[in-house]
């Protein structure tokens, strides 16, 4: 068995008719970091909760390490570690007491010191939870998720509330765990986090996966763009026809899958025509652009689909 996580046609509806997860399929091979990326409300947490076994899907199947995480909870739980989006700890316990409580509920737990050292909280052992900062709580949550030496680690927005340094420390830790063979499923709305950490990622929007692959595949699938402003008196219509240019007044944007060729053609034309291109800027697609474009495009698709339904009735 090579896949640690398998999701097949997962759906999750809430009472009231809202469907947060609308048919999601993906697999995560062992030893890989997989990121679910999406805006707030995209369905990331609802999806992860199905895989953690906190809820049963309304349709589709979830498999973690070959088991149904909801029905075969006892078989799966000792082998996974979970960090919820919002961790819950009794505010009057100290850090050490919380780790001890969790260790008592965990088979083959690491020594508390080791787990706290890994997240840099060892010096805060005697501090009550209510006195911890938001970032420290996130790190404590991570320490508990690591306590049982999990084979599969679920991290729901692990770095939300962390400062830049804390974020990079967490990334280092997650990479080190991956290198030791841990499979990691994480959700994030930080594009930078997905890009630098994930072996593969999926972009979710409105309960569906819209695009998935390695970070470079995902960005390569999006067009690069060139932007510039034409001087007064030069109409955009004079641009070479081969360039798919969209103009808004004198400002022009060109989208292309062959950035080098398009840029060459543009510059050749500008030199021959003696035109200066102000504010010329050319860049490959970033994950952020892919993400934003997908978000707006699916909105449009959804309107279409709803429209069709209306006419079908």
């Amino acid at each position: 068995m090579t896949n640690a996580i398998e999701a097949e046609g997962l759906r999750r509806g809430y009472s009231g008719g809202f469907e947060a997860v609308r048919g999601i399929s993906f697999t995560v091979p062992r030893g890989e970091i997989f990121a679910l990326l999406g805006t707030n409300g995209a369905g990331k947490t609802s999806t992860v909760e199905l895989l953690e076994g906190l809820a049963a899907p309304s349709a589709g199947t979830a498999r973690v390490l070959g088991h149904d995480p909801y029905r075969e909870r006892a078989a799966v739980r000792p082998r996974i570690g979970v960090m919820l989006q919002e961790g819950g700890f009794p505010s009057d316990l100290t850090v050490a007491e919380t780790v001890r409580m969790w260790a008592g509920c965990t088979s083959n737990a690491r020594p508390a010191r080791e787990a706290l050292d890994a997240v840099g909280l060892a010096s805060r052992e005697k501090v009550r939870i209510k006195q911890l900062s938001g970032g420290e709580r996130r790190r404590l949550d991570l320490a508990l998720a690591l306590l049982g030496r999990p084979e599969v680690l679920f991290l729901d927005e692990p770095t939300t509330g962390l400062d830049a340094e804390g974020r990079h420390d967490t990334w280092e830790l997650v990479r080190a765990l991956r290198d030791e063979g841990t499979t990691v499923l994480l959700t994030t709305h930080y594009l930078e986090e997905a890009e630098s950490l994930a072996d593969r990622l999926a972009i979710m929007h409105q309960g569906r996966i819209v695009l998935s692959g390695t970070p470079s595949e995902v960005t390569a699938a999006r067009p690069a763009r060139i932007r510039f402003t034409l001087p007064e008196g030069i109409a955009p219509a004079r641009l070479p026809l081969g360039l798919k240019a969209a103009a808004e007044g004198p400002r022009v944007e060109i989208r292309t899958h062959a950035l080098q060729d398009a840029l060459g053609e543009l510059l050749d034309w500008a030199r021959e025509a003696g035109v200066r291109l102000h504010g010329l800027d050319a860049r490959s697609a970033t994950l952020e652009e892919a993400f934003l474009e997908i978000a707006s495009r699916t909105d449009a698709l959804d309107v279409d689909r709803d429209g069709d339904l209306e006419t079908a009735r």
Partner: protein
Amino acid sequence: MNATARRMTSLGRAELTLLGRNKNNLFIALLMPLLMIFVLRSSLGQMGSDELPGGMAGTTVIGGTGLVLVLVVYMGLVSALVARREELVLKRLRTGEATDLEILGGAALPSAAIALLQCAVLAVGGVLVLDVPAPRRPDLLVLGLLAAILLLAGLAAATTAITRNVESAGLTTLPFFLISAMGSGLMVPLDLLPDPAANIARLLPFSGVMEFVRAGWLGAGDTEDLLTAALTTLVWGALTVFAVRTWFRWEPRR
């Protein structure tokens, strides 16, 4: 130690630490029962309790046992469980290896232990200080106490479903407390109620286990009464399990 015991002990230990750090809950668990027992004793004095089968002292010990159980196990556990739910602790615990029952059981351990300890103090004090005759049927007494703790822990879990936050726990636990105080022989002995009322009172949730506690102290009278008590308790137990499975929430309402 097997895994279930290990998990429940560490959850119970954490819960005990939390109880020790919460003055409100500590007050309910330690001083309220004492206070209520004094109230009970003085009110019994005005009811003409001399004709009661257990005498005034015996009735105080029996009613006091019930008061301790309801105050410590039921009321204490409702506020503890609601606090854990609202802090998202229950949800976090459910991502771990502990089963649902172990999580609830672990949370109930400290209250159950404290209640049993207080019942023991009450029993020893009753026998030594108030000259109550020693329990005639200790087996029935122990059975009654254990059944009471299980039933109250279940009722507490069920009550959290209608309790929005820790502050409202005082209000949501009141109906059961009052019904039990008046109708299950905690504050008003059933023998003092008129017959039709007493017969209905015997079917209240807490009346069955109280009948066992009474029989434990005073000796089993009618086998039929004990059978009714056992059946009543089982039916309420089943209803409680159903309610918990249907309505118990592991995380705050969004």
